[in-house]
Every structure is written in structure tokens, then in C-alpha cells.
């Protein structure tokens, strides 16, 4: 006796669709919750200096499905555990970046810092690159205006 394949296929499709919908509804997060998580993440990123807490946060974020945020928090936790020579090299690179006058090179350095989790240094270098571009458009006369006036006072 042939099996009634059509009802079985319809039932299987319906069950699959119901399962997919249940998973989607379970994973759905309200915008308010997303905003609060963003605040927590930003606060942990910019103000938390405890590696253990950062790892704890990374675990929670990974459990909630925020893999990129968890990876970044782990990177920040690992920042302080780098060997001293690596940390010294990073410091030297940051100082050279702030001394550089090449915006493209400074941005490349900022991207490198971003990849290592040093988001504060990366942000400062990006602002410096932007300021370099702006300052390159300033005529030299206007920048020395105050200095000339100061010299005149002396």
C-alpha cells in the first residue's frame, strides 16, 4: 500500500516552518534591549580596566550571540597581558603616530590598533589624522599670526 506522501510532506514542511519561526522569535531582541547592551558594551570597552571582568562580559556577550563584541572584549583583556617588549613597541608606535604628518599612515596605524583591541588609541589616532588633513589646508600665515603678535609684545 503506497504511503500518503503528500500529507507527510506537508506536515514535515509545517513542522520545519514552525521550528524556524520559534527559533527566530526566541532570538529576537527588542531595540531597547539592544540599546542597553550597546551601552554596557561601550562602557566596558571605554571604562573597564579589569581583565577578569572583561572576560566575564565577553562570555555573556558570546552567549547572547554578540560574537564580534565578545572578541573585542577578549582582545582588550589580552592587551595588558602582552609581553613587555610588545607593549613598549605599541607605545612607541603610538607616539610615532602622534608625531607623524602623514594622515594615511596614521590611519593605517589606527586600524592596526583597532585590530588589537586598543580602541582608545585607534580613535585618538583617527582624530589626529583628520586634524592633520585639516591643518594641511591652513595657510601658514594664519597659524603664525598669534606667534608674531606674541613676538611683537616681547
Amino acid at each position, binding site marked *: 500500500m503506497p504511503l500518503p506522501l503528500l500529507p507527510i510532506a506537508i506536515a514535515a514542511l509545517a513542522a520545519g516552518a514552525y521550528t*524556524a519561526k520559534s527559533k527566530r522569535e526566541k532570538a529576537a531582541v527588542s531595540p531597547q534591549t539592544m540599546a542597553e547592551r550597546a*551601552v554596557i558594551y561601550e562602557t566596558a570597552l571605554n571604562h573597564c580596566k579589569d581583565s577578569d571582568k572583561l572576560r566575564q562580559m565577553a562570555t555573556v556577550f558570546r552567549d547572547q550571540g554578540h560574537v564580534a563584541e565578545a572578541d573585542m572584549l577578549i582582545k582588550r583583556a589580552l592587551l595588558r597581558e602582552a609581553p613587555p617588549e610588545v607593549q613598549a613597541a*605599541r607605545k612607541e608606535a603610538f607616539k610615532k603616530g602622534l608625531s607623524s604628518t602623514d594622515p594615511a599612515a596614521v590611519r593605517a596605524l589606527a586600524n592596526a590598533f583597532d585590530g588589537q583591541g586598543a580602541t582608545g588609541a585607534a580613535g585618538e589616532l583617527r582624530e589626529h589624522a583628520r586634524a592633520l588633513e585639516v591643518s594641511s589646508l591652513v595657510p601658514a600665515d594664519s597659524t603664525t599670526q598669534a606667534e608674531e603678535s606674541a613676538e611683537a609684545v616681547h
Partner: protein
Amino acid sequence: MNTRMPSRRVVIPAPAPAPVARTSVYSQVASPYAAARIPAVSAFVQAPTQRVTIPSVVQPARVPAIALGTAYAQVNSPVAAVSKPRFDPASQYAVNSSPIAAAISKPRFDQGSATMGPVPALAAPVDRGIPAPATTIPGVPRPAESPYSDNTSWEEFKDPDAPRSLVEQDRDDQLVKSANPTLTPKVELPKIVHASWFDKLLKMFGLSRKAVQGAQMAGEAADMAGMTQTEAAHTLVRRSRNGDQNAMAIIALVRDNAKAGNLQAILTAKIMKQYIDTHPVTIDTLDMGYDDMVPTPTAPATDNTKATAIKLAQGPKLDASRVSSFLHAAGFGAEEVASFKHGYAGRPMRNPDPRIQRANKFGAVVSHAHKLQAIQAGGAVSKFDPMIGWELGEDE
């Protein structure tokens, strides 16, 4: 005889892409002030060890009825992005009923008079030549000479030859079906995204295409930040001009989706293009000199301040005598010197006096230049920024 070795197919794995930092994405909605106002975050930062649980359901706080100007600030602030109810009546009024909107939106008497009581005095024109408003009163015929009619639309009063705005074009092309698209171009996604029979079939099972999901996520992200689609597009342009890679990636995604025919992406791309055309990158060189450092108190103190500081740091060392000579040359009085000190310490002044604001910004410039000179001379990074010093391994 074939002496060649049998060829083996060698597969070289592609390097894994570096994960993109997501910090800048959240910089629009998060700030230390917002974090400080959330007890859970403050407790997490301050408590030594604490189990952190991300809440799955957040009860939005009520936003009291506030004045319009304050409402705009609240809606656009990071705190409001967290605490503002999505459909709070006060916020909706603040967003959709600005004075400009009330001035040029469709007149109220054109929207029907079902709820109005009989107003016989207004049924006929007044002797002073003012036409009667287009009220529809049951049982009272409208005068034939009245320029208004029940079907009068605001569009009839506009010059048909006038150039249409971008959003008007999209509305006329049936891309936007908002109630007032000229003022509130925040489009409703289900009406924008083209729904084929396949989409409808998927929707019956609670599924959706990937492109539609992406568009929904973009819309939710804009909602999350409390911004309209236009504001979000403008923010993307500004962030990408500041070198934000995430913003650049989102713009590239919008471009790809627009090429693929996603109507919401096309509209967003048009908005961004219009913003770029109307807001070119301009540098006001007058703002760069020390004498004209602060034209207005509301000027952004970011790029120009640091650019001027870079120029200043390239000069001789900024010791106390040189800085005092600057102050003397600028002719600062006691109030301005106090404002300068506030600016040097990173504290803005609320006094709207341009001279006070100028002195405050001058202090910020000298402070940043001083830090730059210290860093370039091999000083500690922690003195430049304590958090960056922590990132780079310096002890506190």
C-alpha cells in the same frame, strides 16, 4: 613513459578576515553619561566581582511631557535612545509636529470635518474678501465661488512647475507612502520593500528573505538610536568623513543593496548623495587663526581645535612664559583668562559671550598642543590619556 608525478590539487586556505571593531557603531548611542544613569552598568563598573546578566526585556521609562526644544534634545540624546518608549505620545508629538511641520503641512480643514459641530457662520464667505475655510457641514451647500472643495489637496496650491524635492519624487514614484514624506521621510519598511509572491509565502511561515532581514535590521538600528532614516544617513556620511570604517562599510552595503534593487537602500543612497552635495567638506581658514578661534559657541570643538593644536605644537616649546605671552598678546582680561584655564582643563564654559568662548577654546588648543609636545618628547602616554595609557601597558 610518463615520469611526471600525479598532480595533486593544493588548496591554499584564504586568510581569515580580521574582525571589524564594532566600537564606533555604538558610539552614536552610548556615552559615559548614559552609562552612569543606568544602575546596572555603574554597578558593573564599580563592583569588584559581580555576575552580569544582560536583561532580555527592558521596561522603557516614561518620558514626561516636555517642551519642544527639550524634546528634540531628549530624542537625539543617548539616554533617550535607551529610555525613550518607542510610541510615547510626547515623543511622537515632538518628532512629527514641529512648528515647521505645522506651518507647511496639510491644512486641518482639508482633512474632513466629521468631528466638527455645525458652524453656520463660516458657511458663507465673509464680506472682507476672506474665503471661507473648506469645512463640510451637513446640509449646507458650499458656495460655488469658493476656491476650496472637499477634495482640495495641498498639492493644488503648489506651483506645478516648481522642482520637486528628492523625497517628493520618491513619493510620486510610489516609493514612499508616508503620511507626510516631505517632513518625515522615515519610511515604513513593509511598504517599501517589494513583496513578491515568494515573500508572501515566506511570510506565511514567519520567514523572510535575507535582504529584507538586513533592511529590517537597518530600520531597527535607526529606531534604536532614535533617529529617522534621513538622520541616520547623514550620520553615516559624517562618520565616514571622520574615517569610521564601520560607517564606510555600511555605506558600501547600502550601495550594493541599491544596485541590487532594494528600494529602501536606493532611497538611503539618494539621501546620502543629497547630503554630500549640500554639505561639502569645507575648511574655514578664518577659524584657524588664534584671533578668530571661536566664531560661535556652538561650533564643534574637534577638528579645528586639534588641527590648530598640531600647528602650535610644531613650533617652539609651550612653556609658561610663551603661553602667558599669547594671553597678553590676545588682550585677555580676568574673565577670559579664567575661561582659558577652564578650556585648558577640558571644561567648557556655558557663558555664550564669544570672547569667553574664544578664550575657552584657546585653552583647549594650548592644552592639546602641550600634550602633543610632551608625547613627541617621549613623555608618558597616561599623561596624554589615562585610558590609552592603560591600553598600551602603562602603570597607573
